[in-house]
């Protein structure tokens, strides 16, 4: 097993005919992901190297039985595309698009919650990779191998860094989940921790957090109450000054809220080992895995 994407994933890509969309769609297919359709309004009837393109998600789902959507459209259209995918019955929506207005995101979350059903990963995330099974998004699969470490992260390259170091130590991953760097992501650490806890293939979990909000504190509490598997954490941003957005819209220390120190302390207080560098994280994981 693995979480979110696997051999059962039947992917429909929104924005499949765009430059980025088509590039990563073909990349994902080349990895082995079942890419069954795409959506671009006005391009219905065309295809991308054999992947049929539809005008609407409803048509795409009806024709291709897609269960997962990847959203690659520009920020001004992304909220609409997510809602359309959910309305068409898609169960898992992975939104790569960066820069979606926050109020659009809030409306999307409220609607998904009430419609019940669709799980949203992202937006502003690198996607989900389950090594050896499926890759949906922009995670460079070459750095990861199959294994039993689940990784969930607010940052893309930081994840690659950690995954790469694990691979160098001979450790692989069940799934790598990028939840994205926006202030209010569609899925939180807690949502993904729950999945990893229930996934028999995952034996150890790495969470890579950063400054801003209290998602890591919430994760710490959830781990204490519900996660029996070992968890190793990394927090980026110890040197970030208050009031400054550090690249990710969500990475900001507000007053005394959201500091890396507080997050690391909360995790450690609940028994999570926190590495101070990506290398230290890889070392801790190796140490635990060896037991």
């Amino acid at each position, binding site marked *: 097993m693995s979480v979110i994407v696997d051999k059962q994933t039947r992917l429909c890509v929104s924005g499949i005919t765009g430059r980025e969309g088509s590039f990563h769609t073909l990349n994902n297919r080349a990895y082995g992901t079942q890419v069954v359709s795409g959506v671009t309004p006005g391009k219905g009837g065309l295809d991308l190297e054999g992947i049929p393109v539809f005008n609407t998600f409803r048509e795409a789902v009806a024709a291709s039985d897609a269960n997962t959507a990847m959203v690659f459209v520009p920020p001004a259209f992304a909220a609409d595309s997510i809602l359309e995918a959910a309305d068409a019955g898609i169960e898992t929506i992975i939104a790569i698009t960066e820069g979606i207005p926050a109020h659009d995101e809030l409306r999307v979350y409220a609607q998904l919650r009430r419609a019940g059903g669709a799980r949203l990963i992202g937006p502003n995330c690198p996607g989900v990779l389950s090594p050896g099974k499926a890759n949906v998004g922009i*995670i460079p699969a070459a750095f990861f191998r199959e294994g039993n470490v689940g990784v969930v992260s607010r940052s893309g390259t930081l*994840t690659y860094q950690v995954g790469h170091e694990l691979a160098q130590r001979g450790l692989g991953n069940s799934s790598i989940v990028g939840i994205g760097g926006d202030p209010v992501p569609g899925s939180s650490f807690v949502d993904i921790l729950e999945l990893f806890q229930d996934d028999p293939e995952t034996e150890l979990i790495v969470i890579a957090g950063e400054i801003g909000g209290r998602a890591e504190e919430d994760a710490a509490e959830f781990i204490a109450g519900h996660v029996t598997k070992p968890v190793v954490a990394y927090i980026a941003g110890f040197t970030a000054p208050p009031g400054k957005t550090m690249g990710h*819209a969500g*990475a900001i220390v507000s007053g005394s809220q959201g500091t890396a120190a507080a997050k690391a302390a909360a995790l450690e207080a609940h028994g999570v080992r926190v590495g101070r560098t990506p290398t230290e994280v890889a070392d801790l994981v190796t140490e635990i895995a060896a037991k």
Partner: protein
Amino acid sequence: MDLLEYQGKQLLARHGIPVPEGKVAASVEDAVSAAEAIGYPCAVKAQVQIGGRGKLGGIKIAANAEEARAHAGAILGMDIRGLTVHEVWIEAASAIASEYYASLVFDRAAKAPLVLLSTRGGIDIEQVAAETPEAIASLHVDPLLGFQPYHGRRLAYEAGVDADVVRAVGEFLAALYATFVAEEAMLVEVNPFVITPEREVRALDAKVTLDDNAMYRHPDNASLRDLSSEDPQERMAKERHLTYVKLDGDIGVLGNGAGLVMSTLDVVAQHGGAPANFLDAGGGARADAVTAAVEVILSNPKVKAVLFNIFGGITRCDEVARGLIEAFEQIKPAVPFVVRLDGTNAPEGRTLLEAASLPNVYAAATMDEAAERVVELTR
């Protein structure tokens, strides 16, 4: 984007929230004539995007033209926690019966806007939360349903506002929410808003942060950006569409991906170094973006060495190497560079760099090693 107080008040006024009459002035003469037009007593308020300016002498009451001149003279050009005051806001002083607090923020965990109302206005809300949490009423608003009249009543009664202004405070909160949604704000904080002796509500301050991602829908608001008070490097970076934050140290840092750059800063600090900036060259950074980034980093005169930490995913290390070589041709940097390239096309990138044999550029195999090296170079 953080607005200045007077810009925030103009936004509130657009949605029907009463604010004191006022004028902005960038010179002492303008300030005095604004004060003369408004009448006395009036407040002379430093316009800087930082809290606590009152305690630091940034807000003064003027009883006549002479005082207005003196206060404007003292405040214009003063430094408030590193920010220079370029403008003052002159407004009619308000008679105050009660001072309250209200704000709207995004609650990340609840995925919904959170409204806070307190009868302890004019004080930092974190202090109120610590001292008298029962003086703060709060509720989440469902973004699809919106702020309802009963939300206003509930907050007003729970916070314990004066009984005769429950309805007025509720309407004020509704207007605040309307502002928050219509302008796509990330934060709207009014501390204090007051009840006048005539029992009217009035916003005496406004702290508004707008969503940069939504600015394309609000071209009027985009023009509010206060370029004059921005740091010159940050302005330069913004013009080049680079994500750059100026810091206090002397080691320039460039990486790809926000998390990796934050992590790099931390590792540099762990090795005893002081980063001069955060610079995320972005996913898929091309050679010209790297060249532009080097220019921005080196325009900060404090920079004594530069660390490149690239883990290529979409970003290709050979592109980064090309950008660096181009930058050296154009700028001929005087400071040393430490470059760590890993991930996609790392061997090609390293080969290109070796072939170019740039002066004062050192390769490093890992992030740790790179950080250690760059710190050494600044010693």
